[in-house]
């Protein structure tokens, strides 16, 4: 692994932190305030993009900040895995911010300053998580993310939102505590916490300790990654405004959880080690069960956002499955799904938000015929739905393909079957919404048209992106190469 000193990783983290301050100060001038958000988003994405060329060449920008504990420093490093996450999060933030502007103004929502500045801090933490080079730095940003997202979850300040906030904290802080224990044990066992492709722990630590570490990582990351049975905060968190659900609960927070799994399984413990102690099978089993159960539960949800929440839970476990199968292809598939699912799911949430702002409808059963009044919105919904079901040419097919291949490769055909079945279930609970929207008649929506451009344009962009990611998986930011490279390094022994 070749690294070179660069201030860019730090800049990427600090941009939105600075913006958060400026947003708080511009509370009285909404237009200036919103422009800080947009500016920060563009700059952040630009900085991350600027680091892509050297990462592709295998040279990683790194900056060591200062010692934060005895023997451990705060180190930010843009490596292959990190840049996948950072690119998707920062790009989608720009779109989510545009959407937020339309959403918040469309609803004349309260406390918008708190909303936008919390969002900015969350993105800082997310990029910090993506670029953490050791486990302590990771845990620090992980916990900051939990706290920074709380104001967004309780934003509406209704009883439901406050209860959702409490549940959110209980689950995620418990996960954080488990993670802290894992961190302490890792440091105690290995004397260091730097991420290393292929893992830095060995069988020397003893099966007991390794199992304990595995369970702690499973709980710690499983909370954010909504692996069942640690998932129930996610549907409740749908009480948050839709852009929050879109970015944070489809792209940033939950992806931080699966990203954590990737780091723990690939850069702390190593797939071979985990396979030896039987941890991979446990994880894959939980992920597989989550996929099926979540897909089934999605059918029974009439509230659109809750349905999307269960869909998210299922798809997150695709990624967890990807890193729990002993095959580089499965890893590739899982990591690509981080981006594919993000694009598709955010589209769906954007659509739900556009529908809510325009018509104030939240339930699937109320959406009959809305396709005629909001064709672009529901068209985008349909594209994303097709992708999530795993039908080409939308992106979801590509990642699923590699996941399925990987499962076959590793001799675990049951997961291939699970993936196929889940695809059918996805088609069922998502395309039924599309069907309702376009093919059922109702007079409810004659007064309405499409949502404002602030909301419409982002969702069209993400839908198109989902399709493009399926048609040209490597054209956009070399997503495929990056994922394959991570898989190679995790299995092949070091970058």
């Amino acid at each position, binding site marked *: 692994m070749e690294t070179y000193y660069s201030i860019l990783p730090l800049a990427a983290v600090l941009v939105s932190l600075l913006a958060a301050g400026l947003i708080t100060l511009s509370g009285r001038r909404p237009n200036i305030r919103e422009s800080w958000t947009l500016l920060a988003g563009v700059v952040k994405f630009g900085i991350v993009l600027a680091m892509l060329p050297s990462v592709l060449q295998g040279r990683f920008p790194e900056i060591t900040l*200062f*010692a*934060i*504990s*005895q023997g451990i420093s705060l180190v930010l490093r843009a490596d292959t895995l990190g840049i996948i996450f950072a690119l998707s999060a920062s790009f989608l933030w720009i779109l989510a911010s545009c959407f937020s502007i339309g959403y918040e103004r469309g609803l004349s929502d309260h406390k918008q300053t708190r909303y936008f500045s919390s969002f900015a801090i969350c993105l800082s933490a997310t990029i910090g998580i993506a670029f953490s080079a050791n486990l302590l730095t990771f*845990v*620090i940003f992980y*916990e*900051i993310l*939990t*706290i920074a997202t709380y*104001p967004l979850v*309780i934003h509406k*300040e209704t009883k439901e*939102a*406050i209860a959702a*906030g*409490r549940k959110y*904290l*209980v689950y995620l*802080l*418990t996960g954080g*505590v*488990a993670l*802290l*224990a894992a961190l*302490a*044990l890792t*440091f*105690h066992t290995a004397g260091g916490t730097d991420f290393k492709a292929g893992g830095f722990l060995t069988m020397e630590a003893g099966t007991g300790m390794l199992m304990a570490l595995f369970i702690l990582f499973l709980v710690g990351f499983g909370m954010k990654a909504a692996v069942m049975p640690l998932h129930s905060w996610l549907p409740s968190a749908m009480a948050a405004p839709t852009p929050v659900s879109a970015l944070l609960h489809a792209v940033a927070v939950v992806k931080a959880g699966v990203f954590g799994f990737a780091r723990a399984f690939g850069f702390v413990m190593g797939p071979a080690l985990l396979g030896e102690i039987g941890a991979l099978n446990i994880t894959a089993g939980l992920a597989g069960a989550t996929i099926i159960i979540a897909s089934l539960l999605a059918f029974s949800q009439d509230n659109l956002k809750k349905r999307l929440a269960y869909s998210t839970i299922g798809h997150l476990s695709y990624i967890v499955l990807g890193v729990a199968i002993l095959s580089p292809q499965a890893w590739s598939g899982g990591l690509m799904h981080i981006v594919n699912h993000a694009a598709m799911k955010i589209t769906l949430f954007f659509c739900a938000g556009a529908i809510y702002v325009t018509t104030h409808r939240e339930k699937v059963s109320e959406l009959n015929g809305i396709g005629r009044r909001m064709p672009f919105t529901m068209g985008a919904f349909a594209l994303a739905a097709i992708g999530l079901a795993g039908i080409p040419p939308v992106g979801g097919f590509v990642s699923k393909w590699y996941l399925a291949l990987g499962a076959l490769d590793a001799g675990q055909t049951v997961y291939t079957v699970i993936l196929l079945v889940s695809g059918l279930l996805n088609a069922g609970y998502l395309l039924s919404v599309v069907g309702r929207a376009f093919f059922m008649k109702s007079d409810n929506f004659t007064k309405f048209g499409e949502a404002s451009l602030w909301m419409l344009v982002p969702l069209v962009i993400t839908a198109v992106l989902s399709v493009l990611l399926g048609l040209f998986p490597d054209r956009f930011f070399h997503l495929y190469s990056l994922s394959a490279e991570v898989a190679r390094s995790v299995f092949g022994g070091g970058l």
Partner: protein
Amino acid sequence: MSALPILIILPLLFFAFIAALVGIWHQRLSRYMAVLGVTLALAAAAQGLLTVLTVGEQRYFLGGWPPPFGIEYVLDPLSSFMSLVVLCIGFFVVIYEPGAAFYQAPRKGIPVYPLLMLLLGGLTGVVLTGDLFNLFVFLEIYSLASYTLITLSGKRALVASFRYLILGTIAGGFYLLGVGFIYFATGSLNMADVASILPGICTSPAIMAAVALIVIGLSIKMALFPLHIWLPDAHSYAPPAIAAILASVQIEVAAYALVRMMLDVFQPYYLCNMLSINSVIAWAGAAGILFGSALAIPQRDFKRMLAYSTVGQVGYIALGIGLASPLGLIGALLHILNHAFMKSCLFLVAGGIRYQTGLREIPWFAGLGRRMPLTMAAFVVAALSMIGIPPTAGFFSKWYLILGSVDSGNWVFVTVILVSSLLNAVYFFGVIERVYAKPPAGYPEEVKAKDPPISVLAPILVLAAGVLGLGLINVVIVTRVLELVVASLY
């Protein structure tokens, strides 16, 4: 021999008298005298720490009498660290607006600031002295000052203070008895001297009794579970500034005394008699952590919640001390520093809220986040630190404590520390939720609320910034100061 140690204590005592005299003539000026005195002492303490880190230990013999005959004041890494903590917090409390500090501006004729100076002087004296009996003298000085200062809040405070007085005097009495036994057995009252004499008389039953008495006496003073019962009332009824000093500094000075006695004076003795007082203290600490954190949850009164929280935090310090490992002690000492900043910030916030709105109970704090944004922002930072969210200071002291427990293989302690973080989150987020997410109930006090004036807000904000800053620079503190301390004690 250097005069630096006594130069830290002298301004406090000297200006206590000046403030008293000036106060008779002009009440307001006594506060300015107090500020002057604390500033001088703080400057001396800072200089003391620098000198110790660069040059080495500094000793001062009172009256020129060399030990073991005379009284000695010692500036070593531990005591210079502690004295700086005490005086930092003391400084912020002294510059805090009197109306908010004491619920009302001190009435004419009540020497509030002189007593405060005596309190700080006594605390600093305990920290800096190298003589066992002299420690008792300063212990009593600050205790008497604190009993008096607590009563400024009215009737209930009077009862609470009386209870504290009884228990505190018992504690002091135990300590004195223990010192007496030591004196009879060793013939010396000087700490370093006693430490060298003790190995020779290991098995003496007088010494065993002395150890027990001193540890119990100091544990009462420290409010270590289950000897904490005086604390909740005393701290909830005391005026906010006094509660700040009591919770954040006095408790820790008692912990310092325990560290000094157990690890410095008795250490050689322990080694040859293998008493397991360490584990008793650690387990009492663990129990205290859970007990304090759990009992803080149902409290409606804000300061009472903070008081129970203090019982829990003392448990962390005791756990660190009792772990008897370098990492554990580093965690305990770092927590002493961090807790001093966090807890005093929280109590000063309580004072600010009371001053601005008259509100005391958490259910009535609804909507204050909007009305008092800066105050509540400081509260959030301090609360996150108490819960242990990085990068605030509280995370790092817990981190070292966890590392120390893992090192000792004590998984129960690890679990206790982690679970207590969650318990702390429950009651602090309860307040955060109330303050930010609940609409104001419409009470006139809430509607009129706004951020308190700068004389109240400044100490609060600086302390909150300190909580964040101490977290980020914790390694500097650990490597430059605390490791020296640990090296000198182990």
